[in-house]
């Protein structure tokens, strides 16, 4: 029988291309630890909702096994940390390792987070020998991320994966013999996706029941018969078992952010100690940016404290930063964090510091602005604003933006320095009912309730038709209630609280906004000139007059 698949499968003999695989054991566990979801010595297991997929060495020593149900795993080990599968997390933390491998060899492919494949011939010749290449790879990864890994070199995908498990190098031409004695289950290792793995698992289960226990048993069968009996999956398994090569689908690299991190031991409780570490991190980051020929658009500083709190802040960067610039930013940030000034509660010493270069782009594509470099004034102002942000937190420095609205308060939008300063509401729209110019120079952030009365001392109201119920004659302003707006720090008002005689007024101008929504706003505005006071802007809402602004 000559099936078309068999015809395709003609060169079922092992490939002769030398490959290397780098395997980090229990990667999802290592990734969870790297992301700070568990301590290194805590027993940890990764589950998929049904059962345990993987567990850490500590958990294994207490009897937790993969395949166990969550409940029985917890029974074996009550302090077990159970985490759901998260491919993104695995991929994200794997990136530094890929970068470390790339520093040693080119043409790196990620089979799945935890396993990296690379061609071995060129790099091993460069390194001197295959043993030395393996040494260099292990060293680079350990230096970069502290993760322990194993390297296997050989021919064929399954060969290198199994060799990596043993940390061995399979001599050229002996792939078939090396594979022959392995259990047929190991074929599953070569599956890049979970679905492919499930398909292969089903197949190997069947093979076991048919008495084909080893890869050697499988390869002993003619390829055509395997194709006829087991279909495409069978052909794939047969080919892998014979030391054949299947082009692994190259996984898209999830992000190109460049990450450098450092564990602080002992924990840093002073800014200068942490800044010292930040300095070396910044230098590493800059070197790596330069080596890859890229610049970053943002710098993200992440720190973790001893009590597990995570502090993250992004800074905008322009072009290629110098180590000093980076260090400054990190130091200001740490200053604020450690002193507990950044609007967060005073925090504990730092145990983990990480710098991430985000929005990475090739260095050549970033140019100067159209009108040349930024002005000196802008550079200085930016520096000062960042410094103040480091003292007061990001929300401490605001940039005002003018947007559309009917009254001065809603025309104002304040954004934190460094954020996108765009109006939310169109300023060029007509805005009927807008208060006439000039606008009040003082706009109260917290409107002050007050009382407007007629000559008889009765509160002046605004009727449903937008008319005053009586001629206003006096204005009663009581001092701001204590406790409001930080007490003593309340800025002084341009008008002193007291009683004023009303001389003239304009309005009321009724404004009904967003009446179609669930948060309608109905107000009446009034300009008022009182004796011995500047012109005031009042607004009546919720059955009360409020001082909204002062034309001073």
């Amino acid at each position, binding site marked *: 029988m000559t099936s078309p698949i068999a015809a395709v499968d003609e060169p079922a003999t092992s490939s002769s291309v030398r490959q290397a695989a780098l395997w980090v054991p229990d990667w999802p566990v290592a990734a969870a630890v790297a992301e700070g979801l568990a301590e290194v010595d805590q027993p940890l297991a990764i589950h998929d909702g049904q059962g345990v997929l993987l567990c850490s060495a500590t958990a294994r020593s207490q009897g937790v096994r993969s395949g166990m149900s969550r409940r029985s795993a917890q029974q074996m080990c009550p302090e077990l940390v159970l985490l759901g599968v998260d491919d993104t997390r695995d991929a994200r933390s794997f990136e530094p390792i890929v970068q470390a491998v790339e520093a040693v060899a080119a043409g790196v492919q990620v089979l799945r987070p935890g396993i990296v494949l690379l061609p071995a011939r060129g790099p091993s010749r460069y390194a001197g020998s295959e043993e030395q290449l393996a040494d260099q790879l292990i060293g680079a990864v350990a230096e970069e991320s502290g993760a322990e890994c194993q390297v296997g070199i050989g021919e064929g995908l399954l060969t290198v994966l199994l060799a990596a498990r043993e940390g061995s190098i399979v001599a050229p031409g002996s792939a078939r013999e090396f594979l022959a004695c392995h259990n047929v289950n190991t074929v599953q290792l070569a599956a890049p996706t979970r679905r492919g793995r499930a398909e292969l698992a089903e197949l190997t289960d069947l093979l076991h029941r048919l008495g084909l226990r080893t890869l050697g048993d499988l390869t002993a069968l003619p390829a055509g018969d395997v194709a006829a009996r087991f279909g495409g999956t069978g052909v794939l398994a047969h080919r892998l078992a014979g030391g054949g090569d299947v082009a692994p689908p190259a996984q898209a690299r999830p992000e190109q952010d460049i990450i450098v991190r450092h564990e602080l031991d002992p924990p840093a409780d002073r800014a200068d100690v942490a800044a010292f570490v930040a300095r070396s991190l910044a230098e590493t980051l800059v070197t790596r940016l330069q080596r890859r020929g890229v610049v970053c658009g943002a710098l993200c500083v992440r720190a973790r404290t001893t009590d597990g709190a995570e502090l993250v802040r992004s800074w905008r960067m322009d072009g290629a930063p110098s180590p000093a610039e980076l260090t400054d930013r990190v130091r200001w940030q740490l200053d604020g964090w450690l002193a507990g*000034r950044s609007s967060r509660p005073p925090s504990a010493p730092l145990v983990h510091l990480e710098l991430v270069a985000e929005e990475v782009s090739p260095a050549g594509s970033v140019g100067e602005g159209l009108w040349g470099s930024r*002005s000196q*004034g*802008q550079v*200085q*102002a*930016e*520096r*000062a*604003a960042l*410094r*103040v942000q480091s*003292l*007061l937190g990001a929300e*401490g*420095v*605001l*940039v*005002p*933006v*003018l947007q559309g609205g009917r009254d*001065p308060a809603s*025309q*104002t939008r*304040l954004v934190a*320095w460094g954020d996108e*300063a765009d109006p939310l509401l169109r300023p060029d729209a007509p805005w009927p009912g807008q208060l*006439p*110019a*000039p*606008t*009040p*120079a*003082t*706009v*109260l*952030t917290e409107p002050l309730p007050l009382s407007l009365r007629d000559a008889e001392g009765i509160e002046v109201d605004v009727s449903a038709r937008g008319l*005053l119920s009586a*001629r206003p004659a006096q204005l009663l302003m009581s001092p701001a209630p204590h406790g409001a707006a*930080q007490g003593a*720090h309340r*800025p*002084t*008002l*341009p008008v002193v609280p007291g009683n004023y005689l009303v*001389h*003239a*007024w*304009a*309005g009321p101008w009724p404004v009904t906004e967003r009446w179609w929504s669930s948060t309608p706003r109905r107000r009446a505005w009034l*300009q*008022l*000139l009182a004796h011995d*006071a*500047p*012109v005031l802007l009042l607004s009546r809402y919720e059955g009360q007059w409020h001082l909204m*602004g*002062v*034309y*001073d």
Partner: protein
Amino acid sequence: MAAAEHSTRVARARRLLNEAEAAAGLRTRMPPRPRLVPLPGPTTAADVATASDMAEENVAVPAALAPLFPHVGLRRGAAVQVTGSTSVLLRLAEAAAGDTGWVALAALPDVGVPAAAEAGLTLSRLVTVPSPQPAAPAVLGALVDGFDVLVVGRCAELREGERRTLNARLRSRGAVLLSTEPWPGSDLTLHAETEAAEGLGEGWGALRGQYLLLRTQGRFIGGVRQLRTWLDTEGLHPEPQMVDNAPRLQAVS
């Protein structure tokens, strides 16, 4: 004969070398610069001083307010206390910032942003720090270092010594500080008072503008200078009746 030929050859070689260096941009031969540059125009020492002051040392003030200030402007590094009118404060800041300056508002959460834009301030060069309270000295120090005009509101916890330190930094940096509260070592105190408002009726009209009475007092001004101005959307306009160097406060109405 031989010596003369040698010296001309050396001279020619030097000349060629110089030309090559200049062409390659390795060295530029500058003509010797005169050590004293004559200033065109004014001839007396006082005039020279004023002219150079105006060129470098001074910052602009709104044209309508010029008579209130000495030297026809504000000294760089000066601190000025401005009370009674936020509009005047904003217009002073705008004039001092000019076309390129950066302005920071500190401890002034109630300043109206539309009014700031109306006063001519470029909002993209304006930054506000509404409450510098927990670390006011450090925050103001940083702002003085980076901004050309610093407008400060009520900072209760700033001590006198810290204000003086800021003054020193202001001077070395050449920035201008406008404060709504008393500021030690300030050059000038400007107080504004609303005299009358135009446009409001009894339930009709709308505010058009107001008359302000401005008084300055301080260094380089003998006595008190005062000025009536008209403030509207267009800005500040001088009123004809101006009393210069009034020895005593006078009621002007």
